[in-house]
């Protein structure tokens, strides 16, 4: 169970942005190619199949949280020391005085 918990499933903000952009590019490209190819051979079913292939490729490339979408993690602040547990929350600037 701990092994499954240890699998990272998140994308960082930059990764989310790139995943969305990449999926749009892949599907649009396959759509354009499919439209041209379907028009050349005069079969619209081929257009639909090519769009379907683009969908599958985009799903494989951009839906799972691959490591390339986790290269720019946010730098979170360090956890507060345990001593401040239970104390009323103040703004960090005052507490550091």
């Amino acid at each position, binding site marked *: 169970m701990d092994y499954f918990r240890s699998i990272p499933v998140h994308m960082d903000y930059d990764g989310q942005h790139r995943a*969305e952009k990449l999926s749009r590019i892949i599907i649009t490209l396959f759509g354009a190619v499919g439209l041209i190819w379907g028009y050349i051979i005069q079969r619209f079913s081929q257009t639909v199949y090519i*769009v379907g292939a683009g969908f599958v490729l985009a799903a494989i490339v*951009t839906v799972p949280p691959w490591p390339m979408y986790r290269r720019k993690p946010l730098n979170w602040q360090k956890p507060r020391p345990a001593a401040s547990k239970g104390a009323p929350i103040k703004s960090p600037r005052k507490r550091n005085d």
Partner: protein
Amino acid sequence: MHSLLSRGNAIVAYTLSLLACLTFLCFLSTLFVDYRTIAAINTVKVVVKSVPDYSAAREECDLGFITFDLQANLTNLFNWNVKQLFLYLTAEYSTANNALSQVVLWDKIILRGEKAILDFKNMNTKYYFWDDGSGLRGHQNITLTLAWNIIPNAGLLPSIVARGQHSFAFPSNYTVTRV
């Protein structure tokens, strides 16, 4: 886009929107195609009988029997936005009772990929050629026309009348023997 499900949802929605756009482009690309072509029609046997129409008022009505020849090459009608053709052969005539009667005598479906070159000799009609009175006997000007519906992937459902029609006359005597 933060979770697996939201990313999956986003690409499914985008794919479907794109597919709708492509379908619309396919419709636009065939909007101005001229689907008319030539059909050669001829009648072989032309007989008229007077028989009771039990499907209606049981009065004696004129029932025409014809066989026909039909040649047409419809291969060029198929493009990427045509799924099938529905052909129908219509007899048009006017009588004293009716300014215009149109009777569908025969029809045929041609699916995409099937042979679209028609060459029929001495074909029987599929449907009865009833008049609603006695307007067929001795009628001098019955016009046969071939027409078709284009069933598209997306867009309009046009009904096209073929170029080339055939006019014939019914005999002035009823046939009483079996035909």
